[in-house]
């Protein structure tokens, strides 16, 4: 199951260098960018739209469409995040932290350029790393069990609460998100909770209406209530898009850290790019050189988020293609695409259809190159969105939220969910509870709950056993330290000043 670069180029290139495959890759990229950028359209939905089109295609054509869409969709999430403060995908939540303030300063173009270039860097580096180490990585990933999944999810929640302006409010948001995730049929016993007799809720609250309700509609209502400015739109500097050399050099440590964190966390099945971005941003906030300025619109913040989440995309593909274990919802769809073409992932694929495997690696690589080109070319158009007067833009974005919520399942019920969570998000914002911890809690809730309870079944009810595995122990201890450290530091300062006062009095 080893694969060398010579193999990849020799077997894969002839399949990829084909007019139709290249054209499909361009179509996939544009679709991915569009869907990723639009609030309310998720990359899972992009896949669902594209998959039927791949019916009668050859495998390279099908993956030529899907993989660039996946890569571009993950970057595309950043566009909505930094222009409108509405992340297009869950993985782009962290991009709102620095991307939006930077765009509000009039540097939307530069923010976009940074996101695009560093998404590319993250994606490419992880692709190379994974092409070389795919088998090793996959066998490592399969050793990750219930307790590691639990620890990584709790770690993600801890980090995002820590990043909240107020730790208490962050934890409250996270807890509300976790509670929302318990709506529906319990995955361990099958008992219904909080469904109030609605069959639509048996499978839980749908992700898209909750996410765009809280982030999108809630944000819009908040902005409108504050009063849209007479100035109509923000002035935007168009000049610089490509990262400045001094930023690039200064951010080398950040870049390396983000890619490593994104790749490692992305490989753990069930976590995917979202936790990778959260963890990477958290790390930067903790040990980065400009940690004090994080959240005000510094390049480090954008890089930490975007390099990590795109590094996670490559990481999520590997367990899928080597062992048939999907890392997230999108890779699950990609797995289906393989099956649709009678290709069974696993070592057999590597021995019998190495050409297909090679073409998948090349197409993933190509997808990253394509969104870099189209992202940079399109950046001027995207930035123009912000030049649309706010009073016209906001109603249109609100309407898109409604249509997006409806489109997921073609369900009016989800439109009601959107309205409820729009109002909830609006009220939460008024009392200073930021949406990010809540949404992350909602995304990770099912993982946290089922792994906690399943873990307790496998360990016969022992909480201590969660600390018996090195990776889960490391992550859980880090989470606890992270959450108590601000309190401890304050306590230490308080004691020190008292001690000094005492010493001075004695003198």
């Amino acid at each position, binding site marked *: 199951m080893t694969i060398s670069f010579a193999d990849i180029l020799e077997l894969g290139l002839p399949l990829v260098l084909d007019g139709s495959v290249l054209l499909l890759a361009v179509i996939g990229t544009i679709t991915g960018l569009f869907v990723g950028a639009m609030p309310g359209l998720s990359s899972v939905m992009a896949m669902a739209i594209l998959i039927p089109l791949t019916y009668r295609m050859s495998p390279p054509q099908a993956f030529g469409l899907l993989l660039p869409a996946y890569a571009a969709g993950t970057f595309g999430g950043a566009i909505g995040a930094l222009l409108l403060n509405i992340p297009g995908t869950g993985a782009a939540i962290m991009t709102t932290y620095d991307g939006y303030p930077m765009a509000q300063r009039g540097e939307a173009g530069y923010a976009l350029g940074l996101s695009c270039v560093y998404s590319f860097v993250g994606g490419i580096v992880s692709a190379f790393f994974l092409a070389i180490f795919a088998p090793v990585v996959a066998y490592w990933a399969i050793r990750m069990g219930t307790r590691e999944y639990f620890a990584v999810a709790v770690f993600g929640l801890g980090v995002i609460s820590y990043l909240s302006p107020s730790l208490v409010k962050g934890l409250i948001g996270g807890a509300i998100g976790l509670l929302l995730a318990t709506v529906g049929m319990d995955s361990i016993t099958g008992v219904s909770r909080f469904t109030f007799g609605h069959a639509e809720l048996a499978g839980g609250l749908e992700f898209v209406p909750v996410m765009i309700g809280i982030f999108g509609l809630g944000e819009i209502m908040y902005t409108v209530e504050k009063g849209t400015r007479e100035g109509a739109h923000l002035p935007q500097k168009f000049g610089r898009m490509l990262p400045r050399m001094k930023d690039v050099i200064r951010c080398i440590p950040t870049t390396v850290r983000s890619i490593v964190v994104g790749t490692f966390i992305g490989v753990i099945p069930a976590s995917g790019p979202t936790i990778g971005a959260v963890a990477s941003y958290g790390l930067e906030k903790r040990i980065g050189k400009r940690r004090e300025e994080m959240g005000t619109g510094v390049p480090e913040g954008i890089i930490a988020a975007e390099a990590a989440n795109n590094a996670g995309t490559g990481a999520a593909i590997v367990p899928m293609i080597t062992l048939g274990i999907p890392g997230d919802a999108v890779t699950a769809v990609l797995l289906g695409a393989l099956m649709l073409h009678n290709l069974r992932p696993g070592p057999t694929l590597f021995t019998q259809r190495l050409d297909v495997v090679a073409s998948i690696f090349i197409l993933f690589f190509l997808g990253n190159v394509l969104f870099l080109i189209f992202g940079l070319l399109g950046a001027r158009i995207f930035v123009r969105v912000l030049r649309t007067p706010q*009073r016209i833009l*906001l109603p249109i974005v609100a*309407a898109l939220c409604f249509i997006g919520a409806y489109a997921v399942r073609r369900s*009016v019920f989800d439109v009601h969910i959107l309205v409820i969570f729009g109002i909830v998000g609006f009220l939460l914002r008024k009392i200073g509870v930021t949406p990010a911890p809540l949404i992350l809690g909602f995304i990770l809730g099912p993982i946290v709950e089922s792994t906690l309870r399943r873990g307790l079944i496998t360990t016969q009810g022992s909480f201590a056993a969660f600390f018996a595995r090195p990776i889960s122990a490391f992550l859980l201890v880090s989470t606890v330290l992270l959450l108590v450290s601000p309190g401890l530091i304050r306590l230490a300062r308080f004691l020190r000043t008292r001690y000094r006062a005492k010493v001075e009095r004695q003198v």
Partner: protein
Amino acid sequence: MRRFVNSYTVTGAASLLLSGFVANYLRNIPFAPLRAGLGPAFFPTVVSVILGAMGIAALIIGIVRAVRQPDAMDLAPLTNRTAVLVCIVVLYAAGIQLLGVLLPTAVFLLVAMLSLGVNRYRAVLATALASGAIYIIFGILFRIRLF
């Protein structure tokens, strides 16, 4: 009493209410039927206890702040504008339920833009353009039934 109304006390009170509601709802759901001792009520109970604890913490912080800086108001009051906003989105959703997506969307766009003070001609033009684009992208390209 009013001096104690700030973002922390409101957050704390809301958390306690939600936590109480969840705890009350879970009374009829088994906490521990499985052999390892954990049922469907276990996890929401744990979370609601955390939520309750954080709610109390927020209340304490809020009261301390209110005592230390009684004049610092960090909470904008609810206004008529809030009520209008809520009404508009609720009506829009009801419209979708009754008439499909496209028509209520056009009406919503027009009403929202006009009430935000966009001039009449631009509002009509923007509504027409946006509705057309929505129809082409969602109705034709994604094959989603819009009416």
